[in-house]
């Protein structure tokens, strides 16, 4: 072991001694190339959001779920990009003021989203799985009461937080996306 390595490990400063807390950089966990793509997406957008770890090829349907119309809003997409974390993934930038993080958590549970201001990703937003989802997922169980009582809302509840599993509030059938 060299001296410099030793010095590095010995040089951990106690928190109280550090004069300023440095601004936390946006750590996305993707490969460097993907980081570069995200930086470019942010630069192109100016403001809005960049999203990574979207399932490969899933960008357009995700936009659909997020109710973002690509013919109305500025959208930049990189599809099927190699990624150490996910094998392949889509990277997505949208120039909107607000994004439905509930829906994002629901349909792309592994996605990481960062807000973009002045052409730079400034902070990550943690999407949280919603406890109830109303009239977004349809129950596919042919024996479910919602099939014959059409006035009912389609309600799915979060059954398992860790698995991100949703079940029909009426018949308990697992949600199929």
């Amino acid at each position: 072991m060299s001296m410099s390595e030793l010095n590095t490990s010995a040089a951990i400063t106690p928190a109280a001694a550090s004069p300023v807390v440095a601004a936390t950089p946006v750590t996305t966990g993707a490969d460097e190339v993907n980081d570069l793509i995200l930086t470019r997406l942010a630069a192109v957008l100016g403001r809005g959001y960049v999203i990574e770890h979207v399932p490969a090829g899933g960008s357009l349907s995700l936009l659909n779920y997020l109710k973002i119309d690509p013919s109305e809003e500025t959208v930049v997409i990189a599809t099927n990009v190699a990624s150490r974390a996910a094998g392949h993934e889509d990277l997505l930038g949208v120039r909107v003021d607000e994004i439905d993080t509930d829906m994002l958590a629901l349909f792309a549970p592994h996605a990481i989203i960062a807000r973009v201001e002045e052409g730079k990703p400034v902070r990550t937003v943690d999407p949280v799985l919603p406890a109830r989802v109303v009239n977004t997922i349809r129950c596919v169980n042919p024996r479910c009461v919602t099939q014959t009582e059409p006035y009912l809302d389609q309600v799915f509840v979060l059954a398992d937080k860790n698995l991100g599993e949703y079940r029909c509030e009426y018949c308990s059938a697992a949600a199929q996306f």
Partner: protein
Amino acid sequence: MAQQLEQLKGSHLVSLDEWSAEQILHLLRLAEWMRTHRDDASQLAAGSVMATLFYQPSTRTRLSFETAMLRLGGHVAEYEGRSLDTDDLVFRETIHDLIRSLSQIDDIIVIRHPREGSALVAARASDVPVINAGDGGHLHPTQTLADLATLLRLKGGKLRNLTIGLCGNLAASRTAHSLVTTLCRLGHNLHFVLVSTRQNRMPDWVLARLDRTPGFSYEEVDSLRPVISSLDVLYMTSFYPTQVEPTGQARQASNSTANGKRLSRDYRVTPELLRAAKPDLAILHPLPRGLEIDRAVDDDPRAAYFTQISLGVDVRMALIATLLGKLPQQFDESVVFAEQGSDVDE
């Protein structure tokens, strides 16, 4: 004590998951009281009317509910089930409207409906308590209460330190799923022996529940014969899938042909099999049965499936009285299972 049950006045029973473990145990104690205090119970629901609404025929369940209400001194209004049994959206009134209307007329409503989730729709529409008497292949909570009452009755008032076998089409048996998951909340130190073919295994979500419950364990086997001697309880289920609920001739046919051939000695209870069983084994079955229990077993003292039916009336009496808020003044639950010792550690 009885406060746990008083809190349930005016509520529904759609799923046992909505009740606390304590509430379920208190209700089972009240059922035991009902069994031993028929005279004291006989006027509890006097003047109340219970509507039974069976979109799907189930004579045994309907009569059990109706008898329970009559034994409480109440009345029963039976609504024509068959005329309601249609999926035709044009001619059929919605569950919501029908139940909302009935709840203006009757004091408590019992519904059995082939659609999964129908009981929840009914409960939300109703101004009076609604009891789920089976919503398709989904839930049948009063069957589970009867099963639990039978276990308590036959196993010394305790749900602990037992080896419980479940045998049959465990993939499709809603009563087996419900019994196991409810025991995960009420029992202590239970070992489950799951006896089925590979295709009819207990679903993963039930096994996951067992994995998560401290003190619980299970094994999966493909024959009753090597495990019968270890069992304290054997819960048999029918081989036809409960979701489909074939009636009458269809059920007879499925039992006598395809299932009959497949139902080898590995999954049948016969007098020969029982020679190796414990003398105090309790054999349960939610009924109706197919070929899985030989009729020669019926007179064996270990056969508990007809006891289950009788205790089913007691739990329904306790349930109706509780939801109507007509609890007996004399009910002292500390003495109910006193001779065997109570199971609750509160």
